[in-house]
């Protein structure tokens, strides 16, 4: 099935509305968390095995590069959770008009930024 309707595939020329931004970040953060699963399980396993391994994981996670990864994963988890809560509220017909959806999208982006900043400050 070929059709000749015009397509705009230049993503840089499309201005993403805030609710769409929250939506695609919800998906991206979810996928990122999925990719992080084996490392998180490995860390959990090591941390429970012995005092030496626990210390090893603690030392590893206090490296700046590891802290950066933790901040990124922290953001992913926080954004995914907040955007998910927004999703469930909208399932219950809360804030489904466009202006309210924009406001709640802005709230999700802003609160996840603030909470991620707090996580970063706590880690350093």
């Amino acid at each position, binding site marked *: 099935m070929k059709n000749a309707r015009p397509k705009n595939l230049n993503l840089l020329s499309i201005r993403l509305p805030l609710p769409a931004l929250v939506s695609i970040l919800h*998906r991206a953060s*979810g*996928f990122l*968390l*999925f990719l992080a*699963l*084996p490392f998180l*399980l490995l860390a*959990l*396993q090591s*941390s*429970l*095995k*012995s*005092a030496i391994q*626990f*210390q090893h994981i603690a030392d590893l996670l206090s490296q700046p590069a590891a802290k950066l990864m933790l901040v990124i994963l922290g953001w992913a988890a926080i954004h995914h*959770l907040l955007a*998910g*809560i927004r999703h*469930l509220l909208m*399932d219950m017909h809360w804030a489904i008009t466009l202006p309210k959806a924009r406001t709640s999208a802005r709230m999700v982006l802003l609160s996840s930024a603030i909470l991620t900043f707090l996580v970063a400050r706590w880690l350093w």
Partner: protein
Amino acid sequence: MVDRLFSRKYSGMRHWLLQRLTAVLMTLYLMLLGALLFAQHPTQYTAWKALLSPLWLRGATLLFLLSLFFHAWLGVRDIFNDYVHPLVLRSFLHGAVAITLIAYSVWSVNILWSVR
């Protein structure tokens, strides 16, 4: 009436419901874990192990992880459905993710039940 919508015939409805059910379970668990971490501050191995040693918490943790894996399955499956169009490749990716998540489930039981 409503429960018919969640029968095998309408699998999309079931997935929708399960995605949300697992999400709520995970949120409740994370609040519980957050409270425990805040109260006990386990910075040493013995304290960390002691925190995770009660059977009920290990059970809750396993329920959290299984919810997480199932939630991940529903989400990742949707992502591949949206972006990976060649059927053979998509089927392969679905299979790989499913096997991986089942392996994670077995691994999780193993991790949690080696805590004494």
